């Protein structure tokens, strides 16, 4: 008679050092192997969508910051683009360039957090502090521009709240010169470290057709081998004026679409963002950033779905207007929400230590999952 073994249910509860927020993962284990994973979310639900229906269009902007709090510029960017499409207004070119510069700096800052915390989860505690030290420099650039380090309320519908500080462009150039060698230092510490490769290569492999069917986007989709970037394929703002590359996962250290690929794509993307910022600094024209901000936003009855390339994936805003000053319905499609849906498929067959590696490589932010 065979020995009857029970499956153990392990709760990686809402309070856990590694789940990047309040996420509850219910794991069914057989020994150390996972046979099922159920994510439970909703701990950070702050009713963003219901709030939007009670506020006017400009009042929604600070609330969009707080969804994905590690990439606030992009949340505001996406919202401003969606409402401008609905209104049919055109913003001055200087505004577009500044938005792009801010967005790309925000991308670097967000990827630094992702890489630093990923190293911390795997056990390498020092790169975390190096990443945060470099991120502080970016955040002080932001503070100089709009007064806030993390939640900006800077990109308004129709323009920006403040123009750039006179020293901003010089300091941006200095930062780029300072940061390029730091990427190489990060590569030496983590990327080519044998222990790190053993922990992340061939772990959490995401096949491409599964990824597209589940709606995965951003660096996770690119790591599975698909060259898809909304900045190039559905170009918004002035991204079509810049020359940059889209890094794609090649399975250098293991299989295409494993955790190492997802991590390495983020490092390569930081390099590409530096290129975009350099070109934007060269090309930026003069202009007035507040000239196109409408006095009163009252779009015609209609709807729009507009999307931008968040550091985490495709951030989509679906806005329905009924002709009044308040939006009728704002639905935000956050990439982290979508990526959590694939956890059950992705975790089957791996061990508990791999859960942390896989969860860290997907790079979720609970603020965006729960809104």
């Amino acid at each position, binding site marked *: 008679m065979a020995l009857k073994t029970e499956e153990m249910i392990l709760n990686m509860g809402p309070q856990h050092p590694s789940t990047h927020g309040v996420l509850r993962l219910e794991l069914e284990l057989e020994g150390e192997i996972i046979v099922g994973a159920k994510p439970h979310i909703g701990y950070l639900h702050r009713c963003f969508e*219901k709030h939007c229906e009670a506020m006017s269009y400009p009042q929604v902007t600070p609330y969009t910051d707080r969804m994905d709090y590690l990439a606030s510029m992009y949340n505001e960017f996406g919202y401003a683009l969606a409402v401008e499409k609905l209104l049919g207004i055109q913003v001055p070119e200087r505004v577009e360039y500044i938005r792009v510069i801010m967005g790309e700096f925000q991308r670097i800052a967000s990827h630094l957090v992702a890489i630093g915390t990923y190293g911390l989860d795997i056990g390498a505690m020092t790169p975390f502090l190096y990443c945060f030290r470099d991120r502080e420099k970016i955040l002080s650039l932001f503070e100089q521009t709009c007064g806030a380090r993390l939640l900006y309320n800077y990109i308004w519908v129709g323009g920006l709240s403040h123009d750039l500080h006179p020293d901003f462009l010089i300091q941006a150039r200095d930062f780029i010169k300072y940061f390029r060698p730091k990427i190489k230092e990060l590569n030496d510490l983590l990327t080519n470290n044998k222990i790190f490769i053993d922990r992340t290569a061939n772990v959490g492999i995401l096949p491409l057709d599964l990824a597209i069917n589940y709606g995965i986007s951003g660096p996770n989709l690119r790591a599975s081998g698909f060259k898809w970037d909304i900045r190039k394929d559905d170009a918004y703002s002035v991204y079509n004026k810049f020359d940059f590359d889209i890094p794609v996962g090649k399975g250098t250290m293991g299989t295409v679409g494993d955790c190492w690929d997802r991590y390495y794509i983020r490092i390569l993307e930081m390099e590409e963002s530096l290129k975009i910022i350099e070109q934007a600094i060269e090309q930026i024209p003069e202009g007035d950033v507040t000239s196109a901000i409408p006095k009163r936003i009252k779009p015609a009855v209609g709807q729009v*779905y507009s999307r931008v390339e968040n550091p985490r994936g495709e951030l989509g805003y679906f806005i329905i207007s009924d002709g009044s000053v308040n939006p009728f319905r704002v639905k935000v499609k956050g990439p982290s929400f979508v990526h959590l*849906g694939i956890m059950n498929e992705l975790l089957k067959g791996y061990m508990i230590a791999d859960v942390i590696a896989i969860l860290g490589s997907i790079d979720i932010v609970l603020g965006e999952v729960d809104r």
Partner: protein
Amino acid sequence: MKTTEEIFEILKTNFGESILELVTAAPVEKFIRINQLEVDKVCQFLRDSQELLFDSLMNLSGVDDANGKKTAADNGDQIISGGTLSVYYHLESTKYRHKLVLKVSAEREKPDVVSVANVWRHADWHEREAYDLFGINFLNHPDLRRILMPYDWDAGYPLRKDYKNPEFYQGMKVPY
């Protein structure tokens, strides 16, 4: 790359009665209205047909149309009766780069829509969210339960226009 009108014609030839109308009047997007009980067959066709190949669902959202009769209940709250709840689907093809918007409407009193979770696994969690916040019942969904609200929230569906917060939830006072 196909336009919405061309796709409308293709769908009309294949599905006839289920395709209701093509709405082009309002800005910015045009959308096609579909019968709520046939939407999974239409979506399966849209995904698998070689000239359309809509293999990616960009977004799925529930909307409270608030187009019913607004009456005042005994305690002064506003109740909407009649009217519809809708679901919007935004589709995209990664190969041909064309996009499509579908709309499905269901009665407010009995909002049944067939689930497309078997066509695009992406729809799974979005439909759970639409069920949680609007009460739209998705037929044939693999695991329909609340996702953002607590699992035992019995005070209604928060994003409906006539929703009012309950006084107490499990002994805790809700409005503060």
